[in-house]
């Protein structure tokens, strides 16, 4: 199992390589760019492919709808659209690198938005509303994480249960009604309407989450251990890492991101609702996979996930601008997932 993982899902990897040296060097370069800053990471081959895809999509936008695509208001709306799922994608990247999966993200975000917009919570003002959303998200993540790490449930099942239950709880709390953010708490909505340097505040929140996520994943012991836990849980345990506690923290982190996403969606829609975030889990997982993270864990990057998400968002935007059928949009997205994974497998095989 581990061998298959290590070689990128190719179980027949025992044949001795012919040209050990050139390959070894390629691997060394891929694993350790000369200066592992943000720019050089983007310069890695697989990220380069994503950037090229994004540029191609932009060219398509410029050609098909020259009047609408390159306008600042359209670019801002792409970023605003990407912010909500983007924050969730950061958490999802951690969970998947750690060898798990979180299907409950959309539902947990909806629950957090509903809980934060109840009349009782709104009475305490916008700061408490935001804190409430974040606590609810983190709490739900902790519950999933506890079931998975200490209850030994399969992540798919545990988070599926959380998805269904959180959606139900959100419906119950809101009585299936959309709850408006009250006029006293318009500070929440200001995150969407106030602009700094032409961009709404919520885009900055998104950017901040990405930067912090990148730092945690690449510069802290927590991030290092996440790769270890996902890449080889048994080796991680025998190296003295508390794998169960770490796993629980990963889901709590994902829940925390859902809470932040709930604040963003309240700002963008001025509501809390049990219908928010429907199928966000699929978009987030797809973005992570397109970004080159292995679904089996142990390998992946935040930058890749965000590029994957931007590709998805731009496609949605292009379809809307061109007045095309949303069904075709889904077909296009499905094709992109398949193509991206096939390309990644080829690049992995050529290296291992």
């Amino acid at each position, binding site marked *: 199992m581990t061998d298959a993982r290590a070689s990128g899902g190719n179980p027949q990897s025992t044949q001795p390589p012919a040209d050990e040296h050139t390959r070894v060097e390629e691997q060394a370069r891929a694993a350790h760019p000369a200066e592992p800053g943000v720019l050089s990471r983007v310069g890695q081959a697989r990220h380069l492919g994503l950037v090229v895809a994004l540029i191609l999509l932009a060219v398509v936008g410029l050609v098909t709808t020259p009047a609408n695509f390159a306008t600042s208001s359209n670019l801002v709306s792409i970023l605003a659209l990407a912010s909500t799922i983007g924050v969730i994608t950061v958490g999802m990247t951690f969970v998947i690198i750690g060898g798990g999966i979180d299907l409950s993200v959309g539902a947990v975000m909806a629950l957090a938005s509903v809980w934060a917009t109840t009349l009782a919570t709104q009475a305490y003002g916008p700061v408490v509303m935001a804190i409430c959303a974040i606590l609810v998200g983190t709490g739900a993540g902790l519950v999933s994480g506890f079931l998975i790490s200490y209850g030994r449930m399969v992540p798919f099942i545990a988070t599926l249960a959380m998805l269904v239950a959180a959606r139900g709880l959100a419906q119950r709390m809101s009585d299936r009604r959309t709850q408006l953010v009250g006029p006293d708490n318009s500070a929440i909505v200001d995150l969407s309407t106030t602009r700094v340097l032409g961009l709404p505040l919520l885009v900055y929140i998104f950017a901040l989450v990405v930067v912090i996520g990148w730092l945690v994943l690449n510069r802290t012991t927590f991030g290092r251990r996440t790769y270890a836990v996902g890449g*080889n849980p*048994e*080796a991680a345990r025998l190296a003295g890492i508390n794998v169960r506690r770490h796993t629980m923290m990963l889901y709590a982190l994902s829940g925390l991101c859902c809470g932040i996403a709930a604040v963003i969606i309240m700002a963008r829609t001025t509501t809390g609702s049990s219908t928010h975030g429907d199928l966000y889990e699929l978009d987030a997982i797809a973005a992570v996979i397109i970004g080159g993270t292995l679904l089996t864990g142990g390998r992946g990057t935040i930058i890749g996930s965000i590029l994957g998400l931007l590709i998805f968002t731009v496609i949605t935007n292009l379809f809307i601008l061109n007045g095309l059928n949303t069904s075709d949009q889904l077909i296009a997205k499905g094709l992109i997932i398949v193509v991206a994974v096939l390309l990644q497998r080829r690049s992995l095989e050529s290296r291992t």
Partner: protein
Amino acid sequence: MSDLLVMRGIVKQFPGVRALDGVDLDVRAGEVHCLLGQNGAGKSTLIKVLAGAHQPDEGTVTFGGEPVRFAGPIAAIKSGISTIYQELDLVDGLSVAENIFLGHEHAAFGFTRRGETNKAASELLGRLGHGEMRPTIEVGRLAAAGKQIVSMARALSHETRLIVMDEPSAALAHDEVANLFRVIRDLTAQGVAVVYISHRLEEIREIGDRVTVLKDGRTAAVGLPARETPTSTVVSLMTGRDVEYVFPSRPAPGSHDNRPEVLKVEGLTLSGRFSDVSLTVREGEIVGLAGLVGSGRSEIVETVYGARRASSGQVLLAGEPVPPGSTSKAVRLGMGLAPEERKSQALLMNESVARNITIAGLGKYSRFGWVDRKKESAAAASLAETVDIRPPDPRRPVRTLSGGNQQKAVFARWLVEDRKLLLLDEPTRGVDVGARAELYAVIRRLADEGVGVLLVSSEVPEVLGLADRVLVLREGKVIHESDARELDESRVLDMIMEGSAL
């Protein structure tokens, strides 16, 4: 009687290791041919060649009078060679009958014929003397002995002329072994040949007709009579080495007696695996555990480390009790483990050498969870140099290293200054001779610096040559303890194979 199987000059090379270096084997129809040899002698590789799982680099195989070359396991099965591996390859969720006919089902238009399948399965089970076993029962509900019967029935479901059994008795209780032998005798009476692998000499004397001994990838003796050959001859054939290991010099016997105890284990028990094990390791001392696979040696080490939760007993590290079942606490108290399976239990194959070295001591290179990367890479570089990892570039992916250098990386992981006890489980498995000497030197140097070492190895000379004190295990119990210099290899082999303590 003519030879059913003739193997001549079989060579199989793996990167860095010549696993088979010219092996000969002759098996006659209707005989039980036993294959003996120490771990690493090449038994497993040889049966994989026979089963078609490996292709030999050199040499010829003749089966039933015709030269054969198996492209894969299916080709071998079709020719009439079935292999029953130690890890039984059955599907737990399917029935007995479905398992027996897996891959060649009785079917019509894609639909399985259940009645026919079950009837044919019953017939095969009856032929094995187990007509009472219901073919519809789920295999997952059978005990080890039952599963073995199913594996054998599967072998018979093909036109099998030769069955290879890899340590079939390892998972069986005494009366189940007797039944296994009865089945084997029935098979050989029908003209089927059996290649039987076991470490237990008493079994070989009971069931075997002839014995072939392997040693260091070569045939040491072909076709000895199983009953008449004296134990001493067999043991000396297994042990007489071409390659002498170079062990570092040891301190004088008893020189550790006044040093403080690093590890004290009292009455440690893991039910079903080992019972009432007590031992001590003093500062600077290397204590070796010798025993066969399944004697409980790895389990003892893993339980001391907290990777398995002890049923009872106590572990003290430098006087402090170690809570059971937590590796992270064991590490915090000052233990380190180099586990048995390097690739699946120790290494992060996606990562660089440096990250493999620093993963266990990340706390030392970080502040408030923030990794100080300068400190980390400096530490990784100096640790890699300490154990002399080659090539000396810690940024290389760990998977590109040879086995010996990978093992050095695992050692280096634990060389942070405050380690008190290192647990080494098969530290030289899959490592070539030159790298072994280097690993031995590293282990001794660590001990000289004051670390206590508990060493497990299935290679008796390694334990005797490296350790200061040796504990001999058999079936989960310590049967002997003494200074390593008071023992020799054949005496230890006698003890662990025959169970005659002293």
